[in-house]
């Protein structure tokens, strides 16, 4: 009983941490601050993954998101904004409509909860004798092999495409284009 309580407390802390960080992104003016806050959100989510019996996913989350995506975003910021000491501010638009829509959507999402959330029980996953990570490895090599290969090809294509797009020099084609 103690562990369960600890788990719930940890979940509250991590989830609250993530939500507040996300709200920070929402209210942040500075783009760089927003990206750093995104790191905190991802960290919180990774923590939630770990306490939710998904250690491998949590670690992957930290590695890929924080180690890859966010670095990519930082590069993006630096490439698309002139770094000249000015604060990189992001402007807001149609705040009122967005707020209304957001709360409306939130209402929809919370609506079913008041009627309870019955779940079909598939049974415990402790019985196989493998850890979660081992099971994931087995699945990737057996049932999900095709998905893995397709994803690998997709990733390759995406990276090649991204490299190609980023390296494309459009200015040389248009003579009269302004710099």
């Amino acid at each position, binding site marked *: 009983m103690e562990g369960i309580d600890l788990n719930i407390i940890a979940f509250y802390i991590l989830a609250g941490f993530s939500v507040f960080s996300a709200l920070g992104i929402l209210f942040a003016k500075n783009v760089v601050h927003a990206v750093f806050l995104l790191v905190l959100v991802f960290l919180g989510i990774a923590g939630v993954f770990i306490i939710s019996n998904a250690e491998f996913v949590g670690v992957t989350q930290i590695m890929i998101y924080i180690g890859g995506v966010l670095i990519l975003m930082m590069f993006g910021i630096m490439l698309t904004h002139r770094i000249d000491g000015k604060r990189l501010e992001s402007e807001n*638009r*149609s705040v009122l*409509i*967005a707020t209304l*829509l957001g709360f*409306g*959507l939130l209402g*929809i999402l919370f*609506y079913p909860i008041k009627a309870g959330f019955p779940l079909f029980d598939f049974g415990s996953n402790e019985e196989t004798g493998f850890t979660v990570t081992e099971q994931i490895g087995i699945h990737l090599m057996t049932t999900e092999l095709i998905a893995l290969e397709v994803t690998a090809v997709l990733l390759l294509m995406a990276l090649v495409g991204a490299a190609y797009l980023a390296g494309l020099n459009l200015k040389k084609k248009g003579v009269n284009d302004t710099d």
Partner: protein
Amino acid sequence: MENILLYIILFAPLVSAALSYFLTKKWAGETLVGFSLLVLLAAIMAWFKQPVSSGFELDWILAGNQNFSIGLYYDQLAGIMTIVVAIVALLVAIFSMEYMKHDGGQPRYFAMLGLFAFSMYGIVLASNLLLTFVFWELVGFSSYLLIGFWFEKDAPPISSFKAFLMNKVGDIGFLLGIFILYAFFKTLNIQELIGLDPVNAAIPNGLLIALGIGLFLAAVGKSAQFPLQTWLPDAMTGPTPVSALIHAATMVAAGVYLMVRVFPMLAPEVLTVIGIVGGITAFMGAFAAFAQNDIKKILAFSTVSQLGYMIMAVGAGFPVAAFIHLTTHAFFKAGLFLCSGSIIHYYHETNHTAGFDPQDIRNMGGLKKVLPFTFMAFTLCMLSLAGLPLFSGFLSKEMILNGLVSADHLPSFVLVFGFASVFMTAAYMARLYFKVFFNQQVAGEKYAEAVSVKVPLLTLSSLSIGFVFSMNPLSPDDSWLLSVLTSYKGIGIADHFVWVPILSIGLALSGLIFSYLYIERKMLSGLVSGVKSLTYNLSNRNFYLDDIYDVAFVSGSKTLAKAAYWWDQKVVDRVVNLMGKTQVVLAYLIGWFDRRIVDGGVRLVTWLVNFAGNRTRQVQGGNLQNYLAWAVFGVLLIFYFFELMT
């Protein structure tokens, strides 16, 4: 197509007119001559081939049960008339080619001549009075055009206008006569009307007289009878060949022709009036011809006088005599006019002095040597006009005079006028003749007339010789014209009086000698100057008829016009102006309404559409975030409908 010849006679001149005006501008004269020749051949062929009293009728207007038809009718009368018109028209066309060779308006001129010939044949061949009236107006119109041919000069437009107006007075009478006839007989076909015998039909006597007077008024206008004769001398401002064709031979004779046609419809009272008017006209025309100095005006007054003779004959009850005089007169008067045209042409060609009047006989003289051919033709035609034996004029004039003597319903002064006019005709023609051809003081080089002048003169002067019309040129009763006109209903031969030809020959000769003595020998000057001082102005001004008309009608009309103008200006215009102002005020109100209310509504609609368009444009505006917002909104809506509504 048994009537093909009639169609050719009627429509060939019209075709020629259209061709010469629109196509063959340079060869307009040749075109008209060719077509006139065709018409002449057709007329001669019709004389032999076309059965007498043939023709056809077509329905023209059907108004309820009233049927107005048109049609052509051919008999000897029409046959002779078409041949006469065709001959004169052809010769005039030939003559015109020389006479008008320097004129720029040749296509127009020859087209008008063609139009005139078409209308004239229409009158001659028309089978009913309605169609006659149509062509009657057409000849009047083409005559108007031809008199005013040189419209850039001062006099011709006024003269043409005058001729037109004077003719209109007569045409109103014609129209009234037609109305009366149609009201009682329900037909306008001349032969049917004659068959119905209007004189003895059950028709009120007053209307019968009115009908006759009405038809006679038409002839008064067209044939220049008293009191409407003043337009004919003024009509001499037109080209001389036109005067020969229209105002000597054909159109002015149309009135006489109409009288001859409708003679059986004329009541005895009407005949008396006709005879008196004819006598007065003959005398006045001859008298007025004395004091004229314009060669064409002398001939014009002579024409008036001779037309008076014809009308007199109709009034005396001898329309055949009138018709025969019409025929002979057509040839010798056309010849005289063409001679005068030749003289005028000669002066036009040779004398270019400014202000020189080539028509004034005081400028002429000695032309016997200069224009020998014209001189010869003129002599023949003049003797014929004077009514000397062996010439055609003698035959017809004797018939008329015999008729006058035997007609006892005419007052005796008509007979006196008739014989006096014989003397006067000879005298004024001799005056013209000796002044123009013999006066030696003014003379020039011998001038060779062109062939196209010689041919018409030769033809016309030879047609003035009596043998052409009668085997025995001393007796009018032997004329072949009489024998061919047997089918004509109004036929009547006057008794033959032995003293009539003797008296008329004597008068004519004395007239010639009188003028010869006065002009050539300068004798009798005391007598003449005495008469002259009394009558010169009367003659020169044609009995002041024009001045009387000026006072009676023109000034009256002008006063009326002024009054009407005042009324127009002060009353009608003000009412119109008031209405105009009201309209403007109303228009302003409407304009305000339009601008504010209607336009405002329209603008509101456009603004609404614009607004809606702009709003909806935003949806499709290419803004990704808007798309997403709408998508979320859609999700909300779907949820609302599926979850909350149930």
